[in-house]
């Protein structure tokens, strides 16, 4: 794969939390038009990777490009679904209000919602089967419904690339199925979907491309090639001892990772 054909390119991407790398030299090219899974154990930096790609967390070293361009040039083509638990669902807002936020990506701080925007919001609600709940307070939603609302907000952005952080966590079986069907129909429209996931059983069925990581990148490639015993052991079978020793040294002695 060449860089110009990629949906996401990361180059030596490193984020340091509390003097210790949370992700370390993540370097890959991801294809377009595929459902891509990012997998790894808890605390392996999956969410941090998404946040670094989306510019929510500033990477300390390295960079990432989207559609071979810096994020700021293609921001309107990228949509992000944060973890459901990352917000307070007691916030005074309705389902419609939250999905409308998806249109703010285009409208910015000031422009009002047009008829077309309103149509897109309704359409997005229908795609996740939440249209009857448009006026419902978000505090009254179940976990699965909350996740659908977040997805509807992302769809309302009408982006080409979707980054989703653990959309399958804590949702009921019917929502899980609805989400995967939605992902497939978006893929069929030519969109690229990058999904942080941790359930190994479903991984093979859901994803066409897999990124396996544990702070460092273990493997990135077509699911059938990557999903083998060796890679799984490398990803989940504990951290590399020497690597984590070095990471701890960096933290203890406050060494900088790079110096000029």
């Amino acid at each position, binding site marked *: 794969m060449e860089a110009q054909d990629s949906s996401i390119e990361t180059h030596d991407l490193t984020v340091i939390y509390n003097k210790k790398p949370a992700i370390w030299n993540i370097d890959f090219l991801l294809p377009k038009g595929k459902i891509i899974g990012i997998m790894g154990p808890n605390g392996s930096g999956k969410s941090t990777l998404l*946040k670094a790609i*989306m*510019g*929510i967390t500033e990477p300390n070293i390295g960079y990432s490009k989207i559609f071979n361009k810096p994020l*700021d040039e293609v*921001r*309107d083509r*990228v*949509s*992000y679904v*944060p973890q459901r638990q*990352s*917000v*307070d669902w007691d*916030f*005074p*807002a*309705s389902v419609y*209000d*939250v999905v409308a*936020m998806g249109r*703010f*990506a285009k409208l*910015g*701080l*000031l422009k009002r919602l047009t008829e077309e925007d309103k149509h897109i919001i309704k359409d997005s609600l229908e795609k996740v089967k939440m249209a009857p709940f448009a006026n419902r*307070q978000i*505090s009254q939603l179940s976990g699965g419904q909350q996740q659908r609302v977040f997805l509807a*907000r992302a769809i309302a*952005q009408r982006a080409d690339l979707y980054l989703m952080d653990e959309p399958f966590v804590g949702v009921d079986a019917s929502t899980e199925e609805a989400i995967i069907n939605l992902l497939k129909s978006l893929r069929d429209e030519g969109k690229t979907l990058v999904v942080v996931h941790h359930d190994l059983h479903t991984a093979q069925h859901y994803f066409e491309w897999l990124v396996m990581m544990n702070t460092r990148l273990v493997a990135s490639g077509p699911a059938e090639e990557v999903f083998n015993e060796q890679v799984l052991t490398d990803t989940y079978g504990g951290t590399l001892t020497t690597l984590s020793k070095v990471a701890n040294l960096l933290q203890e002695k406050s060494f900088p990772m790079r110096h000029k």
Partner: protein
Amino acid sequence: MMNFLKEILSFLSFSEPNVKVVFWGSLVLCGISGLVGTFTLLRKRSLIGDVISHSVLPGIALAFILGKQKNLIYLIIGATITGWISTYLVDYITRNSKIKNDTAIALILSVFFGTGVLLLTHIQHSGNASQSGLDQFIFGRASAMNMTDVWLFAGAGIIIIISTAILFRGYTLISFDEGYARAIGFPVEWLKLILSITTVITVAMGVQAVGVVLMSALLITPSAAARFWTNNIRVLTILAVVFSAFSGVFGSAISYTYQGMPTGPWIVVVVSLIAFISALTGSKTGLLKSLLLRRSNNRKILKENTIKIFYPLSLQGTPEKYYSLEELSVASDTPVKILSKGLSVLKNDHLIEGNSSLGFRVTAEGRRESRAIVRKHRLWELYISRFMNLQPDHVHDDAEGIEHVITPEIEKELEEELNFPLLDPHEKEIPYDQL
């Protein structure tokens, strides 16, 4: 009490010239703090509000020492600077040290407030003639304002209102989901900066009326009270402004009427009262509402349980027959006291006719009702015996409770799902209106 009301009315009639100043001053200062405070509350930064309000004190004192006089603009600038430094320090410490946010808040608050009190004491001992009245900033004194001050506050207030209206969408989004706001390219750092400058300025001005000790209550309480009434952020903001402006005016009216009382405590008493009443009666989570709901539920249960008694009776006897209270009590195994209460509800709703000497019988509507409740009961028994795998002798108690909750829509779903059954698990007929 009458005297008190008269005093307040005479305040509101602006009979004294200075009253106008106090009225408009408190209205503006408290109104904008309700507006800005909404986002302090929604961003869960209530304690930061407390830090800022305590930390403006050293700024006021320093501005006085450097300016050598009580010039309001100097004082506000001084207050804004130290207030700003305090929030910056709290965020800095939280981000860059092992000290957690709550500890950082306690630390900065006490250091700044302590320094403020120290400086204030120093000024009071310095014998400067114009120092009198600086201590009013501790608990606030609205009557110390003059018309020029009010114009200054009004000007700043208008700027704050306009900027908040323009940036409302941005403020809302960073309050709900900061990460997403960043992801879609909103200028999050700028929004946070402008919002926090606005908050500091609001606090720096508000201490004139409320005082540094209680200012954070005025920032948070109005929107906390408004939260009991609405789930819409725009309505919430407007309500918060109304609540706080009202408390401001009313509180200063009381303190003005009784000369020498500080304003802040009275304003806070009024706004707290509003919050208390809102908690009791608010439309969203109000305790009163749940109390009323429980009452209406109990009435429905009593009514349906009583009408149910007539169902087996109307199957055996002639429908025209009147039954005495005792007969009904025996037939249903219900104490007379509860039964007569239920009967009076039924009569009120025209489901039965008769009286205690003649006896009671159901009306046509009552017969329909009694069939309906029995039908719901038996449908539910059948439903749970089938889908919860319960033995027929285990389903009755559950159905006794659930029968009252089942709406006509649910009933229809049950009928369809069970394919219009004729018999319940006890082989008893399920009574439909028409077959």
